[in-house]
């Protein structure tokens, strides 16, 4: 009993310290949570790159005006190695659909892997402004570094521009300024609302392809798109 009475008088054993710690921990966490919730919200004032449609989940739309063709939604992350494999297998086919106006294709640049993804998605949007999204898309996958290596700095992403035939100096300004950072958040939010839980994720006419069979088999992928 004596021991306990003494213990209670030690500094740090009083209720004041305990309550202070509780208030500080809960307070700091709440102070961090609230701005996070706000910054995660969709930003209606975000600058939007050309050919993007808010009604299509802020995706970059090709052949949006072509009627009675399948609508293909491609959710991808430029940094994701599996997206690169998917691109190798099906990228040319998807581009051929766009060129032949045989499908409406909507690219959604997701960015959950890390900061490199956000910068790459922003740069992709800058390329869309130059009318070179598809070329830049190809160049990014061809030069994909290891995940979150930090290799995709804004400088590196700017240097990749000319490889996609981008010559306008505005591209560099757009990449360096993170001009479409808010838009990248909006794309991420729209992807979350569409229940996209992996990259790549492909929807054809709003229906997700079968992950077990149709993503990495070029014939089945074509069949799935033609089936519509």
């Amino acid at each position, binding site marked *: 009993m004596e021991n306990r009475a003494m213990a209670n008088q030690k500094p740090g054993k009083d209720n004041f310290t305990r309550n202070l710690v509780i208030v500080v921990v809960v307070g700091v966490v709440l102070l961090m949570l609230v701005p996070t919730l706000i910054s995660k919200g969709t930003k209606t004032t975000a600058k939007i790159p050309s050919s993007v449609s808010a009604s299509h989940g802020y995706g970059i739309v090709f052949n949006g005006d072509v009627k009675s063709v399948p609508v293909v939604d491609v959710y991808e992350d430029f940094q994701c190695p599996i997206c690169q494999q998917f691109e190798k297998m099906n990228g040319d086919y998807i581009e051929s659909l766009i060129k032949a106006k045989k499908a409406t294709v909507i690219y959604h640049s997701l960015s*959950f*892997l890390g900061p490199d993804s956000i910068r790459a998605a922003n740069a992709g949007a800058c390329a869309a402004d130059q009318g070179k999204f598809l070329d830049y898309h190809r160049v990014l996958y061809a030069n994909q570094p290891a995940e979150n290596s930090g290799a995709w700095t804004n400088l590196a992403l700017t240097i990749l521009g000319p490889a996609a035939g981008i010559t306008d100096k505005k591209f560099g300004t757009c990449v360096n300024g993170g001009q479409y950072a808010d838009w990248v958040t909006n794309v991420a939010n729209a992807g979350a*609302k569409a229940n996209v839980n*992996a990259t790549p994720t492909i929807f054809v006419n709003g229906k997700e392809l079968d992950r077990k069979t149709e993503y990495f088999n070029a014939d089945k992928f074509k069949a799935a798109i033609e089936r519509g």
Partner: protein
Amino acid sequence: MKKYSLWIGLLARVILGGVLFAAGLLKYQHLDKSQMAVRAYELLPISVANFLGITLPFLEIAVGLLLVFGAATRIAATIGGLLMMMFIIGISQAWARGLSIDCGCFGGGGQVAPGATNYLPEILRDTALALIAIYLFRYPQSKFGLDRHTSDGEQSNG
């Protein structure tokens, strides 16, 4: 014997609190992924899952810190234990329904290749942590905690 149990209490607090704090911090670094991890359980409406994906890491960090400091141990252990039970239910239902997901317990998450799942170890780990939480609920007294045990009557009964 009494002294011995106070040390067990400290160990329990540090393990449960440390795991929760680490898990929360890792999720906090990739909140998009955290949202995705919750959605992938296919248990909640998407908007609720997205909200939970953002708030859960903060809750884990707060509860983890309180446990490590030993402040409001009993309440923190209760919340920690309820979280573990929630995780066990979530993982079990994913397993039973044949979903292929990563639990996203320490960041990450979302769909994975079939066969790359790890459900049993995840459930066992969370069960162990839930038992630690129950222990702390029953015996919140421990070494180096900030809680003053005003319910000393209870203590001397034991």
